[in-house]
């Protein structure tokens, strides 16, 4: 395996992980589940009480969140308690921070162009 193969392979693994993360975050019910699971005190059935949808549907959403690494489940007596993983949420936040940095750079360049429109034109 060459270095390039290895980088490609790593990239694929990262892509796959992030893909799951953003798929999980793209649904309003799942985002709500993340908020309600912040303290890690609710079981799937308690979480399901808060929605009009079936227990099975809520269970599916929790499974998507779990695969994305956004929540973990911990056994507590006969119940499985769901807890939001702050590290994963932090990754989403970090991605938004990067987006912010990109836009700040763009706005700075726009302002430069507006104040000295000919600068750098001959590059």
């Amino acid at each position, binding site marked *: 395996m060459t270095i390039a193969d290895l980088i490609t392979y790593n*990239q694929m693994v*990262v*892509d796959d992980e*992030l*893909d799951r993360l*953003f798929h999980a*975050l*793209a649904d309003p019910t799942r*985002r709500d589940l*993340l*908020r309600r699971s912040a303290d890690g005190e609710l079981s799937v059935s308690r979480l399901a009480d808060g929605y009009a949808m079936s227990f099975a549907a809520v269970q599916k959403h929790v499974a998507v969140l779990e695969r994305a690494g956004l929540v973990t489940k911990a056994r507590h007596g006969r119940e499985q308690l769901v807890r939001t993983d702050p590290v994963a*949420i932090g990754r*989403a*936040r970090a*991605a*938004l*921070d*990067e*987006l*912010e*940095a*990109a*836009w*700040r*750079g*763009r*706005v*700075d*360049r*726009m*302002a*430069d*162009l*507006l*104040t000295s429109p000919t600068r*750098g034109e001959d590059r």
Partner: protein
Amino acid sequence: MTVTTIDKDTEALTLTLIADFAAPLEAVWELWADPRKLERWWGPPTYPATFVEHDLTPGALVTYFMTGPEGDKHYGWWKIGTVDAPRELTLEDGFGDADGRPLTDKTGQLRMRLFEHQGGTRMELHDRFPTIEQMEEMLKMGMEEGLREAVGQMDALL
């Protein structure tokens, strides 16, 4: 002086940005509408953008590529939604192949509006968090930019 406020909603994956420019509204619109001006700010200096097709009419496909430090090319596109020149532009954006064909149907959503504000122009922008492919590209380029800025700050200190 450009005043920028940025609001990030982690759960809705959107970024809202407000920037004030000391320039007339038409001049700010031109930065989007004129591809030669657009390519001087869209990509960071380390990944300058070249717009291949550019037509701000509803439904049109705008194509561009960004050239990385190793000569690597990253192709992107905009699909124009609504246009109310010189005040409002909405578009979907994503990454594509060398022919400008979208690589994926998952896209980011951008809405840009301009207002006359205190003798200058206010730009209000909503960017829905991009998809995984775009985000990966964005992260790579954003980090480059962050580093460049850090280096610039170091230069200023020396």
